[in-house]
């Protein structure tokens, strides 16, 4: 005997409503919250493109197959991945769906009077009674008022309630989290972030072409680049003489905003960026640029000036490339700059201190095709020597010249460079405001106790109370209340 079970039809509206109720249920929110935590884990174990593109490259080199599969699941971009976004967007929808109705409810509840005193107070917690003297209600009224309880007085009884800050704090906390998220999204849409290497003595004008790398949000327009220019006057680095660890970096600049002809002296340090509205200028890294003069065989200058090299270790041994595309044939130098020179058996020339106490420039000269005309973008710090021939190898002190068949190169000296990071983050103040409100709300919600206290005065006085969420401390409060009513305090 079979009987079909009748399933009431949900219909599309019903289905939506069902889905919405499921999504905004506390259970779902809790699962999403835990999922968000778990989903954040892979990003801390697998290198991420935004932080460590070089390591990601190594992954691809070492195990291409696996890396490709990992890339398909966005494991190198976890925090921008569709699945990570899906979790936090669902979580925030769930949060809004949960918090908004509660806010409305709380708004009404906060303006309502407490419910009337229950009939049988002896069934409530902390119940005490004693024979009345007559002035208890007045005393109770005064005490409730001084403790800022909300009261309802009716038929010789007072019902008092306190602790609405608990729910208010809770709601503010969750609403503030939404504000934090909005601040972050606002920044990613309207913000920008760029890096530029500037030699000491050079000038940086804030236009898109001045940057070595520049990222901006979808809705950021170049017109929004703040109008400023700065000249790097002086860079001072102090190092520990024993450990070589940096102790202080100070960057002095001439800073001009708006009217670029009027500059003022400003200082940038690691923990104090230069701020201009929403734009901040940070000192992120530093290094050396050897200054060289390259001449052809007739003695004409083919290239002159500082060439930034990239630091490779804590003692600022730096490597780089000097390219002379205008020479015929083209000439390139693969170089290594050591600020304080020493010889080590295994590694050859090494640097033993980050300050330029005894600088050397080690060069290997190459002649042939630099490959610059092929259209393939290449690093300014490296030379593709596949179509070139090595013509010499030399270690130079400042002022020395290395002559080879096609010409010569002179190591004139060096300049320091600084890497400036320029960030426009218009949403960060919203995020900060959200964070502050969130903490205050959290404190209010975790440390406020919601409770009711009742008193009824007839032939005898009856007092009782009720603490929500089993919060401790009501017994002490009621004992104090009773002591005052009985005139013991």
């Amino acid at each position: 005997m079979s009987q079909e079970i009748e399933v009431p039809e949900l219909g599309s509206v019903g289905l939506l409503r069902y889905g919405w109720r499921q999504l905004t249920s506390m259970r779902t929110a809790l699962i999403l919250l835990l999922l968000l935590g778990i989903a954040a884990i892979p990003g801390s174990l697998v290198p991420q493109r935004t932080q460590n593109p070089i390591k990601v490259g190594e992954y691809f080199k070492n195990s291409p197959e696996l890396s490709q599969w990992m890339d398909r699941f966005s494991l190198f971009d976890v925090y921008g991945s569709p699945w990570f976004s899906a979790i936090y967007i669902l979580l925030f929808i769930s949060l809004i769906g949960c918090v908004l109705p509660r806010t409305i409810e709380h708004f009404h509840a906060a303006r309502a009077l407490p419910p009337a005193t229950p009939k049988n107070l002896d069934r409530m917690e902390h119940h005490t009674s004693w024979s009345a003297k007559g002035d208890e209600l007045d005393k109770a009224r005064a005490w409730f008022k001084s403790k800022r309880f909300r009261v309802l007085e009716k038929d010789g009884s007072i019902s008092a309630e306190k602790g609405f800050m608990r729910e208010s704090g809770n709601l503010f906390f969750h609403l503030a989290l939404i504000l934090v998220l909005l601040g972050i999204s606002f920044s990613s849409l309207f913000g920008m972030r760029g890096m530029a290497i500037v030699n000491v003595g050079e000038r940086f004008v804030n236009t898109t072409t001045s940057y070595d790398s520049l990222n901006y949000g979808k809705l950021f327009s170049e017109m929004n680049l703040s109008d400023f220019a700065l000249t790097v006057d002086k860079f001072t680095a102090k190092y520990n003489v024993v450990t070589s660890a940096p102790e202080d970096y100070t960057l002095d600049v001439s800073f001009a905003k708006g009217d670029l002809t009027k500059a003022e002296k400003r200082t940038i340090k690691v923990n104090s960026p230069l701020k201009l509205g929403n734009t901040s200028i940070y000192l992120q890294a530093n290094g050396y640029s050897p200054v060289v003069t390259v001449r052809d065989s007739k003695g004409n200058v083919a290239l002159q000036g500082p060439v930034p090299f990239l630091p490779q270790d804590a003692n600022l041994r730096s490597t780089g490339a000097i390219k002379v595309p205008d020479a015929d044939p083209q000439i390139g130098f693969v170089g290594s700059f050591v600020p304080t020179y020493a010889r080590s058996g295994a590694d050859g020339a090494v640097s033993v201190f980050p300050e330029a106490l005894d600088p050397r420039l080690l060069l290997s000269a190459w002649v042939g095709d630099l490959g610059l005309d092929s259209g393939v973008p290449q690093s300014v710090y490296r030379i593709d020597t596949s179509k070139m021939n090595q013509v010499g190898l030399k270690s130079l002190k400042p002022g020395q010249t290395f002559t080879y068949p096609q010409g010569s190169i002179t190591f004139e000296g060096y300049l320091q460079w600084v890497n400036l990071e320029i960030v426009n983050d218009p949403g960060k103040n919203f995020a900060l405001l959200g964070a502050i409100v969130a903490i205050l709300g959290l404190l209010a919600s975790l440390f406020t106790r919601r409770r009711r206290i009742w008193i009824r005065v007839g032939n005898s006085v009856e007092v009782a109370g009720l603490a929500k969420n089993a919060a401790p401390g009501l017994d002490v409060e009621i004992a104090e209340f009773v002591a005052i009513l009985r005139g013991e305090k």
Partner: protein
Amino acid sequence: MSRTWAYLSNYLVYSSMAVYTLSFIAHAIETAWAVRVTTEDSKKNLDYKRTEKVARVATAMMILGFILLCAGVVARGVSASRVPWGNMYEFSITGAMAFSGAYLAALRKYDLRWLGLLVSIAVLLTLGTAVAVLYRPSAPLVPALKSTWLVIHVSAAIISGGVFLLANAIAAAYLYLDAMESRGERTAWAKRLPSLEDLDQLSYRLVAFVFPLWTFAVIAGAIWAESAWGRYWGWDPKETWAFITWVAYAAYLHARVTVGWRGRKAAWLCLFAGSTFLFNYVYVNIWGTGKHTYSGL
């Protein structure tokens, strides 16, 4: 001068280890003797008095060890004229100080002496590792650490960590006793430990108390990162794990307050959340990459 202070700091840390060892021994004796003090009647007899006496000695030694360790941490700071939070050795001795401090503070309100054995072992292990493996000579700070936020951010993080670990120890005790009770009665030595319900409440209260502080530590870190590194949040491994810890404890609080989890499930969640904190401290500091590489190892 700075060298003298660094030596003084080392001696103070060594002495505190000696005193913590005495505390550990006293706690061990107390635990052994307490086995015999099982019923209310026997509280009047000699065993009880003896146990109580040795428990007092254990706590007194713990306080003395704590004071010595505080002095050691301060001297370490004076030796480099900065707050002593520049590398992992310094984090560890401060963390051990915070953990035993959290225990002593909680002791004022709750009788937690049964936990003293565990606390003294944990402190000794941490200090031992710090002295033997993590020790680095006292040195000035790198420029990125030279900020007032170092004091604010790191102290909030260390205090939160100390209390989280205490809550973890209590949650672990809960699970252990819960398993014991489900097999039958508690064995003699465990009878003096608080009821399961009390343990459950206690670990919750500790977490609820310190969760806002942890939130503050994360936000203070973000504000500092904004001025030192040019962004307030960059999913650096340390930041990621701080976030995971935050999310895990947020889930724990929601599970308790809103969904009504109690007992075993809540204790497991508490342990999970605490282990994310430990992972962040040990793994990310030593093997992790990213910008929080101040372990000096």
